[in-house]
């Protein structure tokens, strides 16, 4: 398969992720959308890695996976703590920073 197929697939996944972040109100779904965006990027890294015949892209994928895992841990912890104090996790309810 040509490189463009992987890249198109990656772009579609990334766009789905973006739309998910923008329109969903549940933080869990937003998290999943972010993961989707990260993995779309991972897909293009891997595709380029294969296409250019270097290992650099794959190394980056490991880095991204690690960061994503850490991010999820911190994010979930925040969500749990928000739920404990406010009894809701709707992101639109969390607008204390409104000017």
């Amino acid at each position, binding site marked *: 398969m040509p490189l463009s197929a992987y890249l198109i697939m990656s772009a579609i996944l990334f766009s789905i992720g*973006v739309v998910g*972040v*923008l329109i969903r109100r549940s933080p869990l779904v*937003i998290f999943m959308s972010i993961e989707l965006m990260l993995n779309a990027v991972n897909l293009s890294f891997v595709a380029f890695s294969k296409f250019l015949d270097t290992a650099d892209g794959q190394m980056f994928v490991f880095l991204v996976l690690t960061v994503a895992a850490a991010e999820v841990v911190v994010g979930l912890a925040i969500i749990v703590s928000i739920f404990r104090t406010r009894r809701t996790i709707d*992101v*639109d309810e969390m607008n204390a*920073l*409104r*000017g």
Partner: protein
Amino acid sequence: MLNLSLWVLLFPLLGFLILGLVGRMMSRAVILTVAWGACGLAFLFATMSFFSMLGTTPASARTVDQVVYTWVNSGSLHITFGQLFDPLSATMLMVVTGVGLLIHIYSAGYMEHDPGFWRFFSFLNFFIFAMVLLVTADNFLFLLVGWALVGLASFLLIGFWYQRQAAVAAAQKALVINVIGDFGLLLAIFLIFNSFGSLNYHDVFGMLGSATAGSATITAICLLLFVACAAKSAQLPLYMWLPDAMEGPTPVSALIHAATMVTAGVYLVARTSPLFEQAPIALNTVAAIGGATALFAATIALFQFDIKRVLAYSTISQLGYMFMSEGVHNYSGGIFHLTTHAYFKALLFLGAGAVIHALSDEQDIRQMGGLRSRLPITFWTFLIAALAISGIPPFAGFWSKDEILSSLLVQATNTGNLWFYILWGTGLLTAALTAFYMFRLLLGIFMGDYRGSEYIHEAPPVMTVPLIVLAVLSVVGGFVGSFGLIGLARWQPLANFLAPLFATVHAPEVSLGWEWTSTALSIGLAVLGILSAWVLYRKGFAYKENRNPLYQLVLHKYYVDEALSLFIVQPVLALGRAATRWLEGGVLDGGSRNLALLLHGTSALLRRLQTGYVRNYALAILLGAVLIIVYYAVRG
């Protein structure tokens, strides 16, 4: 020759620093030890230097200019801190520290119950220090430093009772008028440096010659110097601060009127006599202002009720005499009257202080009377001082006043100028008025029946001893001066002592006949003044309401304060209020308020962007990222 003038300067400074820093924690005995010690040591060193100078011959070796350190050395500007010790500064040091010491001693009794005891003595020491700096400086810049510090010291002491509104107002008035004088001195110094390129007395006077005589620059310098002198020595039209300075404690009045402060102007004219000799116009101005002030102040003193105020106007009048003398080239006569005046005026003020102390702060002559038997020491010393200031021989004031009047007449007959005859007549008239108001005061306080209700007690010895010392000086103090009457030049020790300083002076030829005429007239007029006071007030002072407009005019001091208030103070206040409203309220406050309002409005608009919704921020980030990508994509 022994020159200890630096030590004379250092001790009062040391006393001021010690008392100012730790005086609060000291007991009264320790405070007195430090204050008296500082002033006493200064007096001791001044005396030692003075006698060492007397023993030095020839007279030319009596001038020592001791450079302590170089302060500024930049381009053509060389300024050193130097101490000039010569007959003039030696005489001034003796007066300043000697009379100052007596006032220090007296103050211990007068201020005994004051909570600001330590503060008072630290200020007194500071005053002595400033005055010593003024008279020993060897250049115009340090003269200015001393000049301004003296003004500051007077401000601190006049406003010593700072809880009293009147005292604070008087202190401010004194400072403002003094600053006018400082400004004149500053301008004179600029002109001197501009024309001579140096500020040292010796260099400046050395550059004078026939080329500079009568030039407009020299005249301007002298007139500006005289502005400073008029402000410091309370001459017309800058005399207003001195009567108000009575708000300070009485020993301060004595210090300001006798030993320090007001003598500075007389000293400065004598010190810069080489300049004044080259500016006849300025010198005539000095004489004219001196004469006008002498008469003007004497008339005001005629009808005042506050005993200190009478003395204040009498000081202004006597200072007028000193300037008259200097105005007719008789500088040593001015300095002579300065020293004798220091004795009897300090005595008068300290005596008045003893009376006020005895009557528990009563100053109104209408509430006194009959104190002769209850305050005997005060009475006798006051009588001596009154005789001295009235010019009755052989008391000190006679010799110096007679010397001044004689030199006025001699100048008049030598030049044949009508104005000098008028000046001489003014001097004579003032002498008669002086005798009258002094004896009105004396008889009003001590004769007749006691009109007040306070309990009376004679002053403690710490106050009477300085009175007695000053009384002795008021009797014998004149003998250092003038035996010119009998034509014996060697019997004029003070004039001969000061002579080297006034070598460039064109002294008029002395005629013994005219001198005797003047003397006879002045004694006659003084006796006349005393007799009229005796006739009017021998039974004690009786106050009668008097509607005579002339009397009212003099009683209200010619309405000078009222006129000043109307024409200067009120307009300035109105300007200040307008500035507060329009400049500060409108422009400055309004400007910053409008700036704040503008920022507030802008932020109210911008705040809408902060919705608080996470998804809006995410959208903004996305759009930003897309824009950056598009930018780089388009740019290629």
